[in-house]
């Protein structure tokens, strides 16, 4: 019973955070609502006994990536006049209808699927260390060693690319962002 309550409360918070995120005009509030949604999702991960990945979600996503977003918003010094709309080609309602139709399609697909595995996800038996750091790390360094090493190259490329992209040209005058 408790797990059902935890699931539905976290699901509601995750959805509500997402909706508030796209409804906000101020990007700082958007970032904070996305953090709320991510923490609710981390609760769901931990309920699915994915302890390691759930902690990573909080540490890496909420702690690092979204702080990077906040940092960029602060760096650009965005104010109200940067968000004023110009032309709006499709009405907002049409856009909501498009995404609602997309969601209904996803639900219909889920209903049609003959889902594999056990029917009850959360309370089924697993190994006691399922999803802990040690078994995930063992997979990461044996079966998935090559993709894991490729990730380091990807991150290196991203770091170099970000520096090149954001670097100021020598010809530009100082004092701008």
């Amino acid at each position, binding site marked *: 019973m408790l797990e059902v309550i935890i699931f539905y409360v976290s699901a509601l918070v995750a959805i509500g955070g997402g909706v508030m995120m796209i409804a906000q005009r101020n990007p700082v509030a958007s970032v904070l609502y996305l953090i709320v949604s991510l923490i609710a999702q981390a609760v769901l991960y931990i309920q699915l006994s994915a302890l390691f990945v759930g902690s990573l979600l909080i540490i890496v996503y909420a702690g690092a990536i979204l702080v990077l977003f906040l940092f960029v918003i602060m760096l650009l010094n*965005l104010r109200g006049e940067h968000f004023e709309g110009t032309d709006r080609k499709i009405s907002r309602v049409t856009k909501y209808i498009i995404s609602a139709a997309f969601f209904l399609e996803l639900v219909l697909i889920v209903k049609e699927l003959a889902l594999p595995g*056990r029917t009850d996800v959360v309370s089924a038996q697993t190994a006691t260390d399922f999803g802990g750091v040690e078994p995930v790390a063992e997979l990461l360094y044996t079966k998935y060693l090559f993709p894991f090493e490729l990730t380091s190259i990807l991150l290196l490329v991203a770091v170099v690319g970000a520096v090149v992209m954001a670097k100021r040209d020598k010809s530009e005058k100082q004092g701008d962002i």
Partner: protein
Amino acid sequence: MIPIAHYLILSGLLFAIGAAGVIISRNLIVMFMSIELMLNAANLAIIAFSRSLNVMDGHVFVFLIMAVAAAEAAVGLAIIIAIFRNRKTINADQFNLLRR
């Protein structure tokens, strides 16, 4: 008693919210955060299947997806800074240089 279909529907709902954010918003930063939300919706489905099938490979996939998302965030925000420096706006409707 939570069937896996509930997790998949929640994941689909989060994905639809992210897609709606990308369609509706004209603020580049909010569009970018919506993409992060969609990546996380996919991660939730992977974790639910991983628990349901009792294999841990899905956790490794989610780990790799998070690394890709971090790289994407770094490069994308650098692009936003570069665009803002040139155009002094982050309204996506005003980036129509190739359309004119």
